[in-house]
């Protein structure tokens, strides 16, 4: 079942992938993001972030609210380069 459950659709990560890095000793979302690339695809973690945090909580015995999140980086949603053209100039 772990092998079939997709946690991160953008980077094609299964529950088994996430559990295996937890077993290897990675405990923070910052580290897991960088090693697995979860939260780094086009959805920027909208789907996987909560699921990975729940797995961290489950394996560490911590409360969900005590698990630190990653920095939310702009833009909020994907934006086409042409929408950015000609908008700003340096002062």
């Amino acid at each position, binding site marked *: 079942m772990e092998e079939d459950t997709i946690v991160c659709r953008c*980077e094609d990560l299964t529950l088994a992938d996430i559990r295996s890095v937890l077993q290897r000793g990675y405990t*923070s979302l*910052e*580290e897991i993001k*960088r*090693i697995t*690339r979860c939260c*780094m*695809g*086009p959805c*920027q973690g909208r789907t996987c972030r909560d699921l990975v945090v729940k797995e961290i909580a489950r394996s560490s015995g911590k409360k969900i609210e005590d698990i630190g999140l990653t920095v939310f*980086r*702009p*833009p909020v949603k*994907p*934006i*086409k*380069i*042409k929408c*950015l*053209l*000609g*908008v*700003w*100039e*340096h002062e």
Partner: protein
Amino acid sequence: MNELVDAVIIGGGIHGCAIACSLAQKSRQKILLLEKKYLAAGATGRCAAGIRQQFGTEINIRLATASIKKFEQLQDELDYHRNVGLLQHGYLMLAYSQSELKQYQENALLQKQIDANNQTSLLGVDEISEMVPQLNLKGVVGASYNPKDGHVDPFLATDAYATAARRRGVEIRTDTEVTDILLQGERVCGVVTHKGEIIHTPVVVNAAGAFGSILGKKVGIDLPLYPERHQLLVSEPLEMFLGPTIISFFHGACFKQTPQGSLILGVGDPQHEIKALNERSSWQFLGDVARKLTYHMPLLENISVIRQWAGLYDMTPDAQGIVGETGIEGFYLDLGWSGHGFQLAPAIGQIMAEIICGEKPFIDVRVLSLERFARGELIPEPYCV
């Protein structure tokens, strides 16, 4: 509680991890690596992940050539369980004037002198157009190209070193900031962490990047080092279409396609960028990138940006690293890489371990000593983005 170790390495970037790994291979001593946040949280994890041999100074060519050979073997050498994202798709450096082209020619000659197997060659406009048909070649007079340059995943390469280091007995403590360095006369005798712990050690390595100047002050050394923010953004993943990493030093622009298919786009803007310990990205950067990158490749206007971020260059007066011993016995430096440090870590990790063990390093790095600034012997590297 007071602890006693044989060496403390400060900084959990790829340099700190590579030093720890090499040092642990040479000796069975107790080695402790301390990182303020998490591994690769600083410049390593924020860099553009490039590796290249096309440099303009002898020392960088030697270090880069040795490092690329090590990157090619890294997975086997460190017995890492996965590929470190190595992709040798080449670097294409555009020339916009005859003088720039002449400089590339001289660099290529120097690279060949140092490494007979170096494959850097100069390309004419037709060859560039064949290699990257989507490129706007207006004003381009030629380019320098090396097919063995490319990409390595900074997180995985750092993790490969850290994992091997731990296996060799190194202890890595993340979320641990060094707040003071203790001296006994003119020699190092320990460090203090933010929790107030005192760790006694005769060896301290400062591999803290732009934050390293704060640590220098703790032992009375004023490092000629300042932070300079640089920014990048990444696109949605696309089908692989772009061969080499494209660099225009003339425009301060650089872009590439990663093994995940995303494009990483960067623009160097040292004139306007903040010179402080500020790792937050700016909205102005989005406009700069959009204008500059669609100039080089107009079809990029149709791709979507998914994330932007910033990181810090640890700039020195000649944009070269500072490596080796200092006036304080037991206090070693490996920082100041000014934006090209990630790719040189495999060679420097070994060199630092050799220096700390009192051996002759496999590449002579005396030109990168701290004293060069006092002696006025700067070795400017012109080829940085």
